[in-house]
């Protein structure tokens, strides 16, 4: 056990945990966040995605020892139902979800791609996302529309 510090959605925390504990379990169980989710534990699907210092990572396999000292953003940190981030607004406007269990990965990898490719089209975004990113309800059509809508709002 070791005291490990972490900033999550702008707040600082210290956790007394086994340093091999994956970041995801600390977010899910200690901080009781619902955004990042366990999908595979193998970096194959993206459901556990969070931003670490602004870059998307898989929290299911990132041990706390390697996350400590960094700044984590989950989809809770982007906005709320009353005050959503423009990306979240785009997903609501396009009704871009079915079960939405995958949504952290699609939104956070999508945000990262679009923020560096403003004005990107749906097909560019589709191919710009990583291949180890899944949506098993296959809501791809509207998720890509939502990301393209958001891409129109991002200033180059």
């Amino acid at each position: 056990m070791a005291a490990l510090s972490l900033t999550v959605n702008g707040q600082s925390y210290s956790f007394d945990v086994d340093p091999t504990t994956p970041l995801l379990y600390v977010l899910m169980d200690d901080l009781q966040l619902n955004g990042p989710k366990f999908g595979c534990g193998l970096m194959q699907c993206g459901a556990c995605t969070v931003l670490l210092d602004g870059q998307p990572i898989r929290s299911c396999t990132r041990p706390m020892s390697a996350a400590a000292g960094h700044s984590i953003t989950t989809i809770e940190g982007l906005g709320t139902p009353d005050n959503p981030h423009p990306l979240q607004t785009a997903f609501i406007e396009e009704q871009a979800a079915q079960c939405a269990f995958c949504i952290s990965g699609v939104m956070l990898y999508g945000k990262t791609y679009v923020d560096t490719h403003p004005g990107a089209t749906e097909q560019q975004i589709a191919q710009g996302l990583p291949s180890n990113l899944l949506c098993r309800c296959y809501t791809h059509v509207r998720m890509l529309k939502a990301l393209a809508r958001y891409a129109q709002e991002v200033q180059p």
Partner: protein
Amino acid sequence: MMRKSRSEGLRQPTLTPDAAAALERAGFSRRNFLKGTGALIVTFSVADCSRAPSSRSTSQVSRLDVPLDQVDSWIAIAQDESVTGYTGKCEFGQGFRTVQYQLIADEMYVPLDRITLIVCDTALTPDQGTTSGSQSHPTEFGPNGLRQALATAREALFRLAADQLGVTVDELSVQDGVIFVAADPTQRVSYGQLVGGQQFNLTVDRAARPKDPREYTVLGTSVPRYEIPDKVTGQFEYVQSVRLPGMRHGKVVRPPFVGASVVSVDETSVQNLPGNVQVVVINDFIGVVADGQWQAARAAAALRVNWSAGVTLPNQADLYNYMRTQPSRDSLTVLSDDVDQRFGEAVNVISATYKTPYQKHGSIGSSAAVADVQGTGPNGRATIYSATQGVYPQRDSVARVLGIPMQNVRVIFLEGSGCYGLNGADTVSFDAALLSQAVGAPVRVQLTRKDEMAWGENYGPAYVIDLRAGLNDQGQIIVWDYEAWTLSKGNRPTAAAPGNIITGALVGFPTPPLVPGSADPPTSYSNNGNSDSSYGAGCVQGRCGGTGNIESERVLTHTIASPFFTGPLRSPGRLQNTFANESFIDEVAALVGADPIEYRLRHLSDPRLINVLKAGAKASGWQTRPSPNAPDGSTIATGRGVACVLYEGNNGYSALVAEVQVNRSTGQVVVTRMVAAQDSGPVSNPDGLRNQMEGGALQGMSRCLREEVTWDNQQITSIDWNRYPVFHFGESIPVVETVLLNRLDVPQMGAGECIITVAAPAIANAIFDATGARVRQVPFTPARVLAALQGT
């Protein structure tokens, strides 16, 4: 804040926040209502959830806790004018929760924001079986569903208002939950004033007249889904997010091989691990429980178990031949007297064989459940938070597994990861319940990816289907012969058969064996999972229920024992059968040199199926010509294909046109465009229906291009997403267009499983159109497409 409301409760079952708020607003105790309905017993109350009922014997299997025929089971009106609906049809991301809000708003003439809907909770909602089979629309809009109860309630409110205002019912009108005299709107009374906080005490009236769909103002519009803002901001509470006070974490340890049994468990292997690890062994069920999730995962991985050897599995490469040689339970869907005679008369006979493998649900989140079980035997009690498709069947079966009375069990549905059928939700609910009972604390279990894929789900079974058609000298099909082999083991869990799913079997409940037997001739028509093609007349004992005009048919299905658990997977049987039937009609069309749509139309009789096929063709810009397309010699060949079906013979008309590019050098297939047309009667929520159609098209594409369960001689080997490849992000996606045929003069049908049913044949037919090569085995991998190309 949902989390807080849970943590405030102690070890007692707590109401979901929606339910608690609704009950408070309703102004009366639902327990009192339920107690008031004669001999029925209710097992919880808001104030005291722990008091056990005493007057019902444990052997009584009752499904009448919330009686389906009582208006009060479905709707409550509060003094503050809020309306609470209760439903046994759950939300899995398909949008039916929102549709039910629309139905209540329309039928009751109240604004949407005044409505709360309580979904799938054995203590609160009527037993509507499972949410499956695209049956939610037919059920809730049918004579035994929510709509009829609402119509009864509205008519009762009108009668009460007429009495109070001293006019006749015919003189009244209603708006926003206020009934008024049409000629003098100042004479008015609200629902809350009439019945707020009281019961209706009414039996659902079959003669009550629901609103005509042509008068809908909320249904038929694209009301945004209720839960999407919470889902995209991380606020939504899935079953995976349920956290109870004192909750511990469990992991299961499944056998390494199919059929392996526990010989011994070395508990010392985990005794020094942190987290107060406990090991639970019940027959072949093994689990560990620890304080933390990571601690449980480490203990499960470290636990040393000595397992017996398993069974030898059928050779996967030879599966389809194996299936033909096993003892089978047979069923006949149609058996015309003149099949042999017609084949004798035919000037041309064509035959082909189609194969679809075992496939997985592969929900992106592995299955999870939280159980709080206290005690054993007659005094045992349990609350199960589950993403099951059927809270009542889960209640009945988990009670048997735990050995406690079913009336002491409450199952509360919470949405899990995408549900396409009998995934691991029920099995993991058993896992959590068994571990909670063993350690005496609430336990959360979430399966590992491997356990989900190898030891969680009931797979969709493989099919091998032989089709044979006889043609007359006009090229018309005069006889159709279908013979299929499929596999079965287990199914949905029931009180009688908890062994229908994996954990039930591991813990020692037998899985009912498949009993071989020959088929009796059919006595009435059902199309048996679309085994009867769209072109069959479906004539049984002089009555014809099919959608086509081929009158001479034999439709025979053999079911053999499966080595793996099987169960409903989105479009069960329908998908595999429709791949065969809709590919084969295309093969016959090509043989006679006919355009695939024109040839279909020659054999269809159902006007709605004809219409949806024409609508899909028109929207796609279909060019009438035979397949295959004239090759232009390029490496990338392009083509288009079509398929159509009336789902399950009575539940949603669908057509799909797919356009593909086939790389002749690599065998790679890229679907570039999919045009889907749907007629499911009155469209409740156009955008929601389009969402289902788009997802169905792409999921169907993934299943037919990529997906196949694999195994070696002892175990499942497709245990992660690398070994069970699916369509993913990072590759180009087809343009998907949707066409809705909004028929307001017919009953509501289902839609959720319709478009996926026609994806595989539309794509296979497009591959043929592009190349002249026919793929008859799912998935259409590059290797199989190349082999087909080399065969042409």
